[in-house]
């Protein structure tokens, strides 16, 4: 990186806000998609909107590409650095700016960690609903970038349903303040458009989110199955019966084993083929009715034991095990590839079987742990990125799984985004004109295409637009 640029940035961000040393930069070379790596030329860590804007103006002047980054827990390569680019991390923007208990909303800096917001809200009897399994690490900004979900999004919906306002720094350093909650929004819903933009439109620096009152009663149930198929069928039944638990998660045998041998051992019995976590929330009567209706359905599908968490501590343990499942897979292999696809919930059993068959046919192991209620599959494939041949089989299996899900009427991504990982798959899902239209939306935000280039939208799909668009065409 040009020494002058570094100097200019240091003048704004201070010495500790600009990481130029290779030993430090190397730690930013990937997000959770471990095999996609590039050591960034520079990493900067602004502390607020003003610093972010000033830094982005400088980068704009020098025509330098930008990759936004929260905690780097993304699983699709959204935060993977790009050649010649600067990573802008939000890790020093972690203040909860305001909790407005009366209006049930909070204004936070983008780098606030999801669970820290939840803790801050709890003091007011409120909570922030989207709870990705990575919530102890991931940032609200990253959640906005990916429109993240989580177990409880079955009931409450994903991030986009909870974001009320944003302060955005545009690629040229201009600040766009969309933070005033406008019930009667005039014009387009730009906030809605930004959520899920995977860092291609700008950097969100402040985020206003809705908070919900903590439900008076919560019951967490653990159902044990001798067979994964049966667990999937039970989910289809719950959905068909129009029951409204707040979360339905399934963990299979390999996942249970990994979790139980970790510090997060939750007390899932070993040797069972699948456990299902079901949670019901609401008033006492509501919860009782839901639970009473759910139990017989699970038993009818072969659940041989249905338990309820006795207290808050046990509840927390059951969830910690679920949420630590990814990390626990580190006991199985150095790297983990998590596919993320959505299928119609009537077809869970069939698709889960197919994913297993696809992996086994390639000599790969597979662990299934997923947001069953949403039909959001997460086949986890352990691998070692140093083994290129194995990695090739893993990616091939991932493609096959996605294709099978799309063929079944599902979609490319449930919550992890497209990033680098699924950029090729965009063309299985969308036609040329569809992609063109998306490119034009992007160009409205970032005409020079300097934000997170090479992610989300396949480049050649955009070429069409680019030759027609004078701004894109000059580059």
């Amino acid at each position, binding site marked *: 990186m040009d020494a002058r640029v570094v100097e200019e940035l240091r003048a704004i961000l201070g010495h500790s806000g600009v*990481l130029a040393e290779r030993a430090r930069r190397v*730690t930013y070379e990937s997000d959770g998609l471990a095999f996609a790596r590039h050591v960034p030329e520079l990493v900067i860590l602004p502390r607020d909107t003003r610093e972010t804007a000033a830094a982005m103006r400088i980068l704009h002047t020098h025509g330098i590409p930008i990759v936004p980054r929260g905690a780097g827990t993304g699983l699709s390569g959204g935060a993977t650095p790009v050649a010649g680019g600067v990573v802008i991390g939000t890790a020093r923007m972690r203040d909860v700016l305001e909790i407005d208990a009366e209006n049930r909303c909070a204004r936070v800096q983008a780098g606030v960690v999801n669970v820290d917001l939840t803790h801050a809200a709890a003091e007011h009897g409120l909570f922030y609903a989207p709870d990705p399994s990575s919530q102890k690490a991931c940032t609200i900004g990253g959640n906005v970038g990916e429109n993240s979900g989580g177990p409880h999004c079955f009931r409450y919906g994903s991030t986009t349903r909870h974001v009320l306002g944003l302060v955005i720094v545009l690629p040229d350093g201009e600040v766009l303040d969309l933070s005033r909650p406008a019930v009667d929004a005039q014009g387009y819903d730009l906030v809605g458009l930004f959520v899920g933009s995977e860092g291609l439109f700008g950097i969100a620096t402040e985020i206003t989110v809705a908070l919900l009152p903590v439900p008076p009663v919560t019951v967490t149930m653990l159902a044990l199955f001798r067979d994964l198929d049966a667990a999937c069928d039970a989910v289809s039944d719950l959905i068909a019966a129009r029951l409204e638990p707040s979360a339905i998660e399934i963990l299979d045998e390999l996942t249970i084993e990994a979790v139980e041998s970790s510090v997060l051992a939750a007390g899932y019995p070993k040797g069972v083929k699948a456990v299902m976590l079901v949670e019901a929330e609401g008033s006492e009567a509501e919860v009782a009715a839901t639970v009473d209706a759910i139990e017989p359905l699970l038993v009818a599908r072969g659940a041989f034991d249905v338990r309820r968490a006795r207290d808050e501590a046990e509840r927390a343990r059951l969830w910690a095990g679920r949420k630590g499942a990814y990390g626990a897979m580190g006991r199985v292999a150095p790297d983990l590839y998590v596919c993320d696809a959505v299928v119609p919930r009537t077809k869970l059993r069939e698709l889960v079987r197919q994913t297993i068959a696809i992996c086994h046919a390639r000599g790969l192991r597979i662990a299934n742990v997923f947001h069953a209620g949403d039909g959001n599959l997460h086949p986890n494939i352990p691998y070692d990125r140093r083994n290129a041949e194995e990695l090739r089989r893993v990616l091939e299996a991932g493609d096959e799984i996605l294709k099978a899900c799309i063929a079944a009427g599902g979609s490319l991504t449930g919550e992890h985004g497209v990033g680098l990982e699924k950029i090729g798959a965009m063309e299985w899902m969308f036609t040329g004109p569809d992609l063109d239209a998306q490119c034009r939306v992007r160009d409205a935000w970032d005409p020079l295409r300097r934000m997170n280039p090479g992610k989300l939208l396949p480049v050649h799909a955009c070429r069409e637009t680019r030759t027609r668009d004078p701004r894109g065409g000059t580059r």
Partner: protein
Amino acid sequence: MDPRDPQQLVDYVGSLDCIHCGLCLNTCPTYRLTGVESSSPRGRIHMMRALAEGAIEADADYADELDFCLLCRNCETVCPSGVQFGHLMEHARGALEPRRDRTAFQRLGRRVGFDLLLRDRGALRFVAVVGRAAQRAGLVGLAARIAGPAGHGLRDAPSIPPASERTRLPVFTPALGARRGAVALLEGCVMPELLGATNRATVRVLAACGFDVHVSRQHVCCGSLHAHNGEPAGARALAVETIAAFDALVDEAGAPLPLVVNSAGCGSHLKELAHAVPGEPDHERRAQALSRRTLDLCEFLARGAGAEGLAALIANVRARDTVRVTWDDPCHLLHGQRIRREPRDILRRVPGVELVEMEAAESCCGSAGIYSLLRPDDATRILDPKLEALRATGASVLVTANPGCQLQWAAGIRRAGVGVRVLHVAEVIDEFVLSAASRPGA
């Protein structure tokens, strides 16, 4: 073994256990402070792996990130993948040390500290005498100036108590009242010089609970500071001495006595002592046996005969008034030895103690062995938010169970002007139970 081979610089296989999930980030004090990935557990492991794979050099920046780590092992407690971070870091520091750019003065300092002082009771005593004289004569500021940046920590160094306080423990103290058994007690290297009062309270408590207390005359240091600070050779030599010293303390039947430790850092090291003697099967076996019979004082008093002894003591006491007390988990007790409940249970049972939880009690206070001497500014930045948390509890006593933490807290509290006393668990029992029992009318 080729010392230039980058794979030898780190525990490469161990580093592969990290699956990059990020669950450790938010609990790491140095990451919370800076937001810098390479100052996080995930980032530090990433650097180690990058070094082994030839992607980076073992340069000053790499070294600085290793040094910045507190070795508090908070990351281990939360890691679902079971990464042995403490071990990875000790290994990386040890392998890096010979290749470091250190000034002659720094080298000399390390040799004096690690090879001379911590190996020799007489030398420690000598430094205590000179140090106290210098502190009283106000010469410390001068020495700190002469030593330059390296001497920065001197100014914040703990004040050395008078000679009357710096006495050794008796080799044998008999049980008081009904005898329940016998234990060995680790006296520690700097404990007698800096925190003799804590040691004596520990002996009084153990004896009052019904245990004979044996102390090794020859033993000086267990080597934990060496292991943490990149001195594996020193750690090995001291491990061998430690094994010999405590294998020699036996009961009537000739079986080695359980070893009670009142310093969490030493206890944690002793429980993993085999790491210090790799590739020596006989020593490894004896180290493991010693590890199995090592107990932190909190563990000892919360289980079995120790707990019975304490219960019997407490039964005799009625509290006069109540004191609000808060507990700060020493990292090497909580994260190193996974002991969380025991000290809290003990404190709750002590008459006259009202235990209130302090926010972030589970996070490092910045003492981290000799970290607060080597990186005083960072240590202060780590402690500052905890001082706020302490204020918020309204407690008048802060309890912990590790000498470094006691000194770090005492220094911070003095600086911040908070009126809180710092006590070791043993001192709490000594004061609230033993002294109370001997009070007329109690």
